[in-house]
C-alpha cells in the first residue's frame, strides 16, 4: 500500500518533470503547447459553442437553453436577407478603402523613415507609436470634436470662406472613413518600418549608379522588396477595420450599420444569439477569404525569397 502510494508519487513527479522538460526544450509543437491550451479555452471552445447556436433551433426558458436541435434555417435566412448583403458589402468596402488609404498615407512615412537621418527616424517612430498610447475610444471622440459642426475643420473652412454653413461630416460615411484611417494608420506603418529598417541602402546606390532616378529606384527596388511589409500591414489593417465596432458606432452616430454593429444589435437588443452567431461566422469566413487573397498576392511578389535554399 505504502509502496503503491510512493510509486504513484514518483510517477506523478516523473510526469511533471517530463512535461516541463518537453515544454522548455521539446522540438516541434511542444513549446507552443501552453499557448494552444489557452487559445482552446478562451477562443476555440467559446466559438464552437457560439457556432452551435447558429446551426440549431433553441428553446430558451428562464434564461437557460432547454432544447437544441440541428438546423440550417438561420444560415439560409441570413443569406437570403438583403440587409446582410448590404451590411457586409458596406463593411467590406469600408475595410478595403481604409486599407488602401492607410497604405497610401503610410508608405510615404515609411519611405521617409528609410531615407531619413537617425533623428528623422526617431521622430517618425515616436509619432507612429504615440497615438497607440491613447485608447481608440478617446481618439474617436477627439474626431467627434474635430469634425463636429463647430469643430476645427468646419470653423477653418468657414473662416477661409470656402463654405458658409458648417458641413455635416459627423454621422456620415466620411467621418467613419476618416476615423478608421487615422486609428489604423500606425498598424500599417509599423510593419512597413520593420521592412525598411532591414533594407540594404547599397541597393539604392547600385540602382542610382546604373542610371535610375529616385522614383525609378522606389518603384523597381524599394517597393518590390517591401512587399512582405505591405502584405502584413494590409492584412492587419483589413482585419482590424473589417471587424471594428467602436469607430462606426461613435462616428456613424448609431445609424451606420456595419458587420460588427449589426452583430452587436442582434445579440444585445434583439437577444437573438442564433442570428448573431451566423453573422459572426459570415464575418469570419469573408475575412479569411480576403486574408488568403492578400497572402497569395504577397507571395506572388516575394517568389524570389523561395529559391534561398536551392
Amino acid at each position: 500500500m505504502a509502496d503503491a502510494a510512493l510509486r504513484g508519487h514518483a510517477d506523478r513527479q516523473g510526469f511533471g518533470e517530463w512535461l516541463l522538460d518537453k515544454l522548455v526544450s521539446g522540438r516541434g509543437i511542444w513549446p507552443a503547447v501552453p499557448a494552444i491550451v489557452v487559445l482552446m479555452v478562451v477562443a476555440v471552445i467559446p466559438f464552437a459553442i457560439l457556432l452551435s447556436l447558429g446551426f440549431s433551433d433553441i428553446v430558451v426558458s428562464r434564461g437557460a437553453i432547454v432544447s437544441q436541435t440541428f438546423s440550417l434555417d438561420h444560415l439560409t435566412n441570413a443569406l437570403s436577407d438583403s440587409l446582410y448583403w448590404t451590411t457586409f458589402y458596406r463593411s467590406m468596402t469600408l475595410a478595403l478603402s481604409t486599407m488602401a488609404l492607410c497604405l497610401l498615407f503610410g508608405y510615404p512615412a515609411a519611405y521617409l523613415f528609410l531615407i531619413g537621418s537617425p533623428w528623422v527616424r526617431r521622430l517618425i517612430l515616436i509619432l507612429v507609436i504615440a497615438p497607440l498610447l491613447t485608447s481608440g475610444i478617446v481618439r474617436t471622440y477627439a474626431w467627434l470634436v474635430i469634425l463636429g459642426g463647430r469643430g476645427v475643420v468646419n470653423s477653418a473652412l468657414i473662416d477661409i470662406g470656402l463654405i458658409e454653413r458648417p458641413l455635416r461630416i459627423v454621422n456620415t460615411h466620411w467621418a467613419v472613413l476618416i476615423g478608421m484611417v487615422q486609428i489604423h494608420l500606425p498598424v500599417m506603418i509599423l510593419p512597413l518600418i520593420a521592412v525598411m529598417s532591414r533594407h540594404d541602402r547599397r541597393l539604392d546606390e547600385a540602382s542610382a549608379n546604373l542610371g535610375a532616378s529616385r522614383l525609378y529606384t522606389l518603384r523597381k527596388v524599394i517597393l518590390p522588396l517591401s512587399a512582405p511589409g505591405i502584405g502584413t500591414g494590409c492584412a492587419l489593417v483589413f482585419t482590424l477595420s473589417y471587424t471594428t465596432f467602436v469607430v462606426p458606432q461613435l462616428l456613424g452616430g448609431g445609424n451606420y450599420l456595419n458587420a460588427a454593429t449589426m452583430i452587436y444589435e442582434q445579440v444585445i437588443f434583439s437577444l437573438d444569439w442564433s442570428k448573431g452567431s451566423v453573422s459572426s461566422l459570415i464575418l469570419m469566413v469573408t475575412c479569411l477569404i480576403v486574408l488568403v487573397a492578400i497572402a497569395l498576392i504577397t507571395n506572388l511578389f516575394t517568389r524570389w525569397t523561395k529559391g534561398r535554399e536551392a
Partner: protein
Amino acid sequence: MQAAVGSPADAPTAPVLSIGAVIKRFGPLTVLDHCSLDVAESEIVTLLGPSGCGKTTLLRCVAGFWKPDGGEILIDGADMVRAPVNRRPVGVVFQSYALFPHLTVAQNVGYGLKVRGMRRAETARRVDAALQTVSLTGFEDRYPAQLSGGQQQRVAIARVLVLEPRVLLLDEPFNALDAKLRGNMQVELRQLIKRLGMTAIFVTHDQEEALTMSDRIAVMRDGRIEQVAPAEDVFDRPASAYVADFIGSSNFLETYAEGGRAALPDGQSVPTELSGPVRVMARPHNLQLTPGEGGPWRGTIVFHRAVGALTEYHVKAADGVTVRAVAMRQGETRTIAEGTPVSLAILEPAHCAVYEA
C-alpha cells in the same frame, strides 16, 4: 604593363578621370585632404591603404554617393561634382555586390539597359553578351541567393560592364571571397578589364591584391595620397618610410649621412641628398647572411621559418636591432640554425632607400 604611365605629364592624351584637390569632411573629421589623382585611358589604378585612410570615401565621391566639400572631379574634362549620381559615366562594383535579390541574373544585368529604355530584343542580346564575357551563360534565370560568392561577383561586374562606363570603380570586390578563389579572380578580373580596355579604380587594403591588379598604385594615408607610381616602383622605390613600411616587409636602419652619402652598417654607403641622422630602408631579400664572424656587421639568428621556397631569418644584430632577411632554399644551401653567429651584408646598396630620421 605598357599602359603604365609614370606621371600624368608623360601621358600622351588627356586623363580620363582627373581628381583635383578633393576635400571631404564628416563633421570635425577631415577624411579626404586635397587628394589629387589622374587616371589615363585603359589604366588600372589602385587606391591602397589601411582601413580609415579615405580610399573608399574617395571612390564614393567619384561615384557621386557623397559630395566633396572642395576640389574637382572631371571625367573626359566634364565636371562631375555637380552631376547627379545617375548621370555619371561610372560603374561601381560594390564590396557586397549589392545585387537586387528580387531580380534574376538576367534582370540584374539588364537593369541599367531597362532604365535607359532600351528595347527588349536589344537588351536581351547585350545581356547575353555580358554574361558570356564573365562566363555565366546558362545562369540567366537564377536569383542571386542561388549563386556562389564568385558567381555573384561576376554578375555584379557584368551588370556594370553592359553599360560600357568610362570609369569602372571596384570597392574591395574580393573581400567576400575565400583566399584561393580570390587569387584566381584577381588575375581573371585584371585580364578582363585589360581585354575590354577599360579605365578602372580599384580600392583595397591588401598589398598583394594591389600588386596583382594595378598598373599604378596610389598609397593613401590619413586622407592624403602618399605616393602614386607603377606597382614595381612603389615596392622598389617607396617615396616615404610609411609607404616602405606598408608595402612589403622592410628593415629600417638608423644611421648617419654626410657629404651626400649615408653609411651602412656593413661598411658600404648609399648616395643621398639628406644629411644628419637618417633611416635607411633595406628589403629582407637585399640582405645576405654568411655564417661566421667575417664582416663588420654581425648578429645572431634568433628565429627562422620557411615561407614557400624561401627561408625568413630574424637576426639580432650586435647593436640590439632585429632585422629580417630572406634567402632562397635551393641546391646545397642549408637552413642556418638558430643561435648561429652570422655576418650581414647589403647585396645592392643602390636598392636601399634613405629617409629622414
